[in-house]
């Protein structure tokens, strides 16, 4: 069967049989790099298109429909336009930091890609502290945003960046705590182990109430962490015009824009991995026939399907809710989400110790 796992194995074996191991490894590095950059570009373009279509239908519009069938090449055309645009650097900006910031944001988004399992045995880096790595790296992106805001020499950008800093630092807590509850249930920090532990059912079903609560908290927290509406304080276009990337134009702006969508993809992939079993097909207890049919669907489709489902949920939020105010945003975190997630962690521990899950 032609699956991602087989392809990688074939490439790996071919390289190792024709070259010496060092060159083979180097080639694999390059291949992985090229593959992930390609994935980035494709993901960014398709997710932007998806967002625009979802928004349009919810707003009783048609959305992009001129470039290509159903407008699928619209985002490509937009990116080409952005590439050709002049990248302005405002007067008085710190040129070095100003140019660096979009790349930092982009690199951080790329780094998080490493431990994510896209399909069965298809993972760039199976690190045994995968979850820890994820939460460590994902909090780095705020540096890029702060850099952009500070270096722009614009008050709007500065305010947006400061808001973003406050926001990401606070929501990191409850995101971490809700991830922890799954770690408590699994007993492992490795992404692979977490997925394998869901062979007989996804955690959101197996661990019922605590998992559901932590999933809701997780979704809220990552929406805030990726600066998406209703928590898009950093960009808040009706207040700060465009927040931290007010002064960016051309390709630098496009990098920020793409990074936003990559970040959404990644956090949704994490959510799918932790709560919905990653590439694990849907298995229901003793329904052997059903389980067998489910196994026929390739694992990569399972993973992508779950991730896109979660991405849709986040988009749904964006096109339904108004934005919070900055103090309400922090209130929500410190007064509601943090106490609830702490309590939930206790509950999860209790469930895990007593074995009250299926």
């Amino acid at each position, binding site marked *: 069967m032609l699956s991602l796992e087989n392809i990688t194995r074939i490439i790996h074996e071919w390289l190792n049989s024709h070259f010496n191991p060092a060159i083979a490894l180097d080639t694999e590095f390059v291949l992985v790099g090229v593959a992930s950059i390609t994935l980035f570009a494709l993901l960014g373009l398709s997710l932007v298109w998806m967002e625009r279509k979802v928004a349009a239908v919810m707003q009783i519009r048609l959305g992009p429909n001129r470039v290509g069938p159903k407008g699928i090449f619209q985002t490509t055309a937009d990116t080409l336009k952005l590439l050709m645009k002049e990248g302005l650097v405002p007067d008085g900006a710190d040129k070095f930091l100003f140019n660096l910031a979009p790349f930092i944001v982009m690199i951080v988004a790329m780094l998080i890609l490493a431990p994510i399992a896209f399909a069965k045995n298809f993972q760039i880096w199976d690190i045994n502290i995968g979850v820890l790595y994820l939460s460590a790296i994902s909090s780095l992106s705020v540096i890029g945003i702060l850099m952009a805001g500070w270096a722009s020499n614009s008050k709007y950008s500065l305010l947006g960046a400061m808001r973003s800093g406050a926001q990401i630092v606070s929501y990191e807590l409850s995101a971490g705590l809700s991830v922890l509850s799954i770690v408590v249930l699994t007993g492992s920090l490795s992404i692979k182990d977490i997925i394998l532990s869901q062979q007989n059912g996804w955690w959101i079903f197996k661990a019922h109430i605590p998992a559901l609560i932590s999933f809701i908290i997780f979704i809220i927290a990552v929406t805030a962490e990726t600066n998406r509406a209703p928590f898009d304080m950093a960009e808040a276009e009706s*207040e700060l015009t465009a927040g931290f990337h007010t002064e960016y134009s051309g390709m630098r702006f496009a990098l920020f824009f793409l990074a936003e969508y990559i970040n959404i993809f990644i956090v949704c992939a994490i959510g799918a991995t932790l709560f919905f079993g990653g590439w694990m097909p849907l298995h229901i207890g003793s329904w052997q026939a059903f389980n067998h049919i489910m196994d026929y669907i390739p694992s990569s489709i399972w993973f992508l399907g779950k991730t896109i489902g979660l991405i849709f949920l986040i988009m749904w939020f964006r*096109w*339904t*809710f108004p*934005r*919070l105010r*900055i103090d*309400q945003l922090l209130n929500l975190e410190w007064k509601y989400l943090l106490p609830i997630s702490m309590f939930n962690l206790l509950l999860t521990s209790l469930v895990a110790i007593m074995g009250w899950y299926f």
Partner: protein
Amino acid sequence: MIEEIGRTTEGDLIINIGPQHPATHGVLHLVITLNGETIKKVEPHLGYIHRSIEKMCESLSYRQFIYVTSRMDYLSSHINNHACALCVEKGLQIEPPQRAQYIRVIMDELTRIASHELWWGAMAMDLGAFTPFFHAFRERETITDIMEKTCGARLTMNYMVPGGVMAELHPGFQRDVERFIQLYKSKFEEYSELVTGNVIFQNRMKSVGVLSKEDAISYGCSGPVGRASGVSCDIRKLYPYDIYNKVEFDEITETEGDSYARYVVRLKEIQQSIRIIEQLLGNIPEGDFQAKTKAVLKLPKGEFYQRVETARGELGVYIVSEGGTTPYRIKFRSPGFSNLSALEHMVKGLKIGDLIAAMGSLDLVIPDIDR
């Protein structure tokens, strides 16, 4: 701007909101002084769309000047035209036929609904929810279609003339309006589900931009802004013009005076407008739609003042006539101008997000402020 920087203390952040800014819906320019995110001072700078309509009107005849007033508060252009027509009629001492009065009032109320609809969408958009904007336009579109069929234009209609209205109603007018009312009633639930009931929206609006009754009067606030603070200031009730004294409707007043109260007042006003239209629609009397007037209108020497209730508040038309064919001086008392002056008082000490919410709830139309 240099003087302003001189007047502030160290650590203050001065930000220009506008003249190009997504939340000002036009070219309003606010210079705000911030301490962190807290607003210390708001100073409006006007004039970016000042066309000096008052001066222009001095050289236009009494028939001609009405069309310019559509460009003041373009969202309630019918009502502006109505005010001017009424003021000229007051000077000429003619009364339009009953049919014209009915048509005028129905058109006014349709305009009011369209204006409030647009405001509803824009308000939600100010707070970051985009979807309601398009949903609001769906209903508004039916009204502009009705306007287009009868008046020939969608926004700046110029349908009211001294002595009545310019043209007979479109044959399908009644059916269209009934269809609109039906559509609106079927969609009204959506408004509360999508926006009004939303917990984020309520938190953003409640106790934000509070204006007490005394302040509202002192700042000259009128319309929904005044009524949300508990000031009974509906000109349609207090100084009825045309046939407003014959129709039954409630003057909506709230007491909180915050942004949410202003929001509620406007939504309830839409329903009152529908109530007015429903009362009048079936009973439009037969007859002329225009009184016989001379080709060249000459107002007697004197001063004439007409107050009407636009979607934003009290519009005053003050004509000073020297007896000629053109006004000697004309003054438009625009509701937005006075409402804007209360903005600083409302938002002092609040956050930037609150400024946007309060500004949105004032329903500012910048050409109306600048004139």
